[in-house]
């Protein structure tokens, strides 16, 4: 099996599996319980928070704030947007975002529009430097800026530290939310609110986090037992949190290796005719989106599947639904119909890439007419 769909999800690493196992068999106490089993769970959580805070920005100093454990990125994004905007009144205030957000952000923005907030959704294809465009769009009325660090379909990235710095300089009151699901551990991050997901970095599904900068006030989505400082009621899944921490510590995907794989892929693809590359140099090297013209994405995907090679057509979240993201990035409809997304993990090798291209070549021979 050659797994090249790591932007959809990743295989949990052995360190994560071990940590989950250990926590389930030995530290199964409720973190709110006062006895020592509860205390042990509470300690696992506290340690995991520390690890996450130290890692999230990718810089030398830890993130200045707290961590909220969630069920995943969708909850993190919803909490960030709904929880921070609920104290604002519409009409005079605006929100700046992009046309390439994940539905867990995009659909909340639509709700804000219905509530009569002004929402700007900038499309990268219209700008030379997209980070600049986002900064320029912020003014004194901007309550919130929400942008994804790395796009899940193409790997398109923005310069998050610069964005955060400049936006705060322009309007210190603007809350900056970064959806870092694909960016976490891969690009430098910063922000007032940062969403991450466990299963994209070799941890389990069902766990994510929202980083909240000190001083940011958000309202909870869930009410109940008041866990996590009243911000997210519900018994904390200690085993998943332990797994997340272990995966973060064990993560070893480095940019150089991904760059090498991407280079290899582009070289191999250049030998084939009629290929359009949808991930340019602005994109992270671990996600490569390209169009094999004349072969519909789904047919390519299943044909590669027959050879034990797993890739994605567009974004796995949208299950065959047409994506507006490629359009916002300037990819034609025709090319979008034939778009394939390959996403690497640290386990992939140049041989995997060559096998992929061999499969693509054979599929073209069979299908393209």
């Amino acid at each position, binding site marked *: 099996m050659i797994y090249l769909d790591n932007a959809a999800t990743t295989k949990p690493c052995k360190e994560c599996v071990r940590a989950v196992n250990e926590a389930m068999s030995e530290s199964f106490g409720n973190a709110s319980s006062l006895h020592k089993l509860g205390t042990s769970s509470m300690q696992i959580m506290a340690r995991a928070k520390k690890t996450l805070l130290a890692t999230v920005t990718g810089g030398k100093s830890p993130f200045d704030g707290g961590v909220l454990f969630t069920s995943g990125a969708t909850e993190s994004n919803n909490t960030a947007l709904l929880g921070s905007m609920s104290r604002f009144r519409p009409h005079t205030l605006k929100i700046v975002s992009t046309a390439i957000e994940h539905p867990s952000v995009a659909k909340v923005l639509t709700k804000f529009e219905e509530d009569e907030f002004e929402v700007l959704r900038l499309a990268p294809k219209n700008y030379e430097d997209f980070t600049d465009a986002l900064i320029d769009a912020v003014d004194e009325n901007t309550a919130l800026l929400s942008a994804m660090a790395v796009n899940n379909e193409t790997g398109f990235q923005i310069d998050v530290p610069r964005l955060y710095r400049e936006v705060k300089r322009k309007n210190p009151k603007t809350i900056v939310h970064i959806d870092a699901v694909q960016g976490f551990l891969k690009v430098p991050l910063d922000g007032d609110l940062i969403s991450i997901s466990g299963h994209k970095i070799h941890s389990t599904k069902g766990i994510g986090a929202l980083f909240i900068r000190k001083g940011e006030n958000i309202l909870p989505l869930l009410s109940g037992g008041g866990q996590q400082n009243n911000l997210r009621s519900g018994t904390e899944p200690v085993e998943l949190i332990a797994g997340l921490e272990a995966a973060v510590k064990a993560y070893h995907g480095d940019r150089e290796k991904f760059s090498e794989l991407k280079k290899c892929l582009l070289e191999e693809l250049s030998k084939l005719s009629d290929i359009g590359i949808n991930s340019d140099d602005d994109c992270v090297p671990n996600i490569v989106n390209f169009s094999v013209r004349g072969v519909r994405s789904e*047919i390519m995907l299943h044909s590669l*599947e*027959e050879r034990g090679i797993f890739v994605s057509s567009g974004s796995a979240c949208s299950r065959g639904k047409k994506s507006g993201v490629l359009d916002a990035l300037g990819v034609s409809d025709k090319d979008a119909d034939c778009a394939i997304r390959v996403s690497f993990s640290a386990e992939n090798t140049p041989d995997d890439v060559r096998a992929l291209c061999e499969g693509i070549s054979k599929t073209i021979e*069979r299908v393209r*007419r």
Partner: protein
Amino acid sequence: MKEIIMVKYGEIALKGINKKTFEDMLQNNIKRRLKLIGQFAYTRNQSTIYIEPQDDNTDMHTVVESLKRIFGIGAIQKCAVFPKDFDTVANNVGEYLKDALADAKTFKVEAKRADKTYSMNSPQIQQALGDAVLDAFPHLAVDVHNPEVTVRLEIRDVGAYLSAKRITGAGGMPVGSSGKALLMLSGGIDSPVAGYMMAKRGLVVDCIHYISPPYTSERALLKVQKLCEQMTDWCGDIMFYCVPFTEIQEALRDNCPEEYFTVLMRRLMVKIANIVCKRDKYGAIITGESLAQVASQTLPALYCTNAAAEFPVFRPVIGMDKIEITEIARKIGTFETSILPYEDCCTVFSPKHPRTKPHIEDILAAESSYDFDSMIAEAVSKTTVRRFKYGEETVFLD
């Protein structure tokens, strides 16, 4: 108080010399379904099967729901069995008929006396029971012409059977009484409905489906298998033939005029079905074709497809429009599965401009330009078969 179920025959009641064969078949079909729910004793009398649960805790609601899907049944009636003395019946009327009568306005009583030695005759029973009902439910009025509820009492040798609700059965003939046929099942709305309709006429319906990976996906196959599983609710156990069809479709694409693609493909599907029918003794092919619905279902196109068939082709939805077909699909529970978005092999390579009025000569000429026969034999030899059993859920699809 003991509750039993009376099953009244539908069409079988009208049969002559073969009636007993049909009755046996119906009873066996019922037994096969109900044994998944509990143990029952069966007796038959005067176009009625009496089903008596052997355990007081039997879930009678599930029994009725199950019976409602068995073809050959005209009506289903739950009834209470009392000792034959009339006073006991009269004393229990209020309690047993509460659900049926509390919210009704009018009623009438029908009495039958199979036991002719009984001390009261039918009109007398009707009169006395009517009084008992009115005593228990004084708000009711008698309406012999158009009653909301008909209370029935049958005096039989073994006891008095009281009931007030008659549920319409699925009708038709018992599955198996007409032989067996092969349904060309796709992932769409129409073919499961066609299968249901022919099972209703007493056919055992098995299914044949054509897959074209990588052009069609694993999920598309799961969807069709789910449909098959859902059809077992009405059809009983179903054999599912799955034919690998990719190479034939590719050969068609590469060697035949594009505008004829769909009709040629349909013909080759029928030819494969012919072979399976001959080998496994099916007497007919069933399809979900509906006249004029798509390009391959125009009269000239159907003529060309039909010409490939060596068995009668039943097209029960041929004269129905989509709304009517959809209504049945909803009723039989396949609609929600049918509308899942996975593409099936019928749409792979479908031409942009299909010929709606193909001539059989042109079709035959195109078909003979390539050696499809050996490919057909190959596809049949690689066909897999799987049995979907009534009451077993093995396909999970979200």
